[in-house]
């Protein structure tokens, strides 16, 4: 596998500018996390509030494995752990209390 080396000072773009859009995707912020969110699939109503509030775009809609009895939605919101920093905004904002923050070490 080809390893991408960090640029030398002569290779640095002028003023450290980023010349292509969307490159933040390459920088995985997930390892900053000390708490992680867990979603109760049964309580999630797929309203998307967590997706709106998430500062790192780490919420994503996931198809339910098996829809529980009486579930109204085919999807619920889960996490992309490559980017979730564990800030807990989602848990604080979730209107149904479907998200709880847990310590990473006890996972």
């Amino acid at each position, binding site marked *: 596998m080809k390893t991408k080396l*960090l*640029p*030398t000072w002569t290779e*640095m773009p002028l*003023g*450290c500018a*980023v010349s292509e859009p969307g490159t933040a995707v390459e920088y995985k912020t997930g390892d900053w996390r000390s708490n992680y969110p867990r979603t109760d699939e049964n309580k999630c109503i797929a309203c998307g509030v967590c997706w709106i509030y998430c500062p790192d775009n780490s919420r994503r809609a996931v198809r339910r494995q098996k829809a529980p009895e009486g579930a109204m939605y085919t999807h619920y919101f889960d996490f992309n752990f490559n980017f979730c920093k564990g800030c807990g905004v989602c848990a604080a904002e979730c209107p149904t209390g479907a998200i709880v923050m847990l310590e990473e070490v006890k996972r």
Partner: protein
Amino acid sequence: MSGRITPGKPIGMEVSIAQAEVVAQCDVDCIAAYPITPQTHIVEHLAELVADGDLDAAFMPVESEHSAMSACIGMSAVGARTFTATSSQGLALMHEMLYIASGMRLPIVMSCVNRALSAPINIWGDQSDIMAERDTGWVQIFTENGQEVIDQTICAFKIAEDHRVTLPTIVNMDGFQMSHVIEPMVFYPTGKIRDFLGVYQPLQRLDPRDPKMFGPVGIPEVYTETKKAHDVALIDSQAVIEEIWEKFAREFGRSYAAVEPYRTEGADYLLVTIGGLGETASVAIDELRAAGVKVGQIRLRLWRPFPHEKIRQALAGVKGVIVFDRCLSVAGTGGPAATEIKASLYNLPQRPTVVGFIGGLGGRDVTVGDFRAMIQKGIDYIDRGAAPIYEMVGVRE
């Protein structure tokens, strides 16, 4: 530019107004500024030129100097030729944004009308303001009179925008003693200035059709490399600045150098000055030369990048160097120019004694007689080998 300037013959005008006129001649696109004494007349006149339709530029009045520099950063980032001016507390308020402008390599041109810093509140001239910003990574040029302000303002745009430099540039002038003085100055035809500068072609700019991000987080893995690139660019800019000054001399007939000698032939002692009081000092040099004292003068025009080699060449051979600073580094190792000159000379196998004097603070006059006395005191210290770390002059005892 307005109808009040006629190129080619000397015109008596306040230096601030003259600088505003020449900025207009330089075809500036955007100006953001906040008024502060003694810089006010520059941006006031630019606002007037824009309002009267004499200058086709965006003039953005803002609520502070911090905002002025922030606005300039944004305007320069989209590729506009950008100008602002400030002084003293205003420059200090810009402090954090100055690093951002240079770190993002934006060729903003700023006039700094040098003034003391409070407290006590003092609106008059000295160099405390700019010396506090010496490490901000801008090209920094000093001037001694109105004509030099006109010439260096034109050169500043050329220097800043050169693709080998792409760094913001400050042109310094003394508050009041230059900014508010009516001097005879020669203007150049606008077309000639615009041909000299050319149309500004940014190396990169913010454009929705070609998305880029300026000013991102520089993580530890890239911050050092970015700073190294900035450092080398500023060091290497000296050769470009000298090349631009040579081109300016060919086309406009007035030449400039990073380190300018005055009556240095056979000198045993040299006085180093930085900024407008250098002209007063030159008269003292003339008088002392006439009295048989072997003293000459070195005017330090380029402050950043610091011209180490030129300073060494100019000073290495003499017995002693007297440096006059218009800025007090409180309880430090001397005035900024003296300290850096000492550092520049230190590793030479044979180096002259350096005596640092500090005066002219907060608008205090420094007369020809003061310079004469200062030089003689300095020579006495050098001859006796008794130079103090630094000494304040003109203090009532």
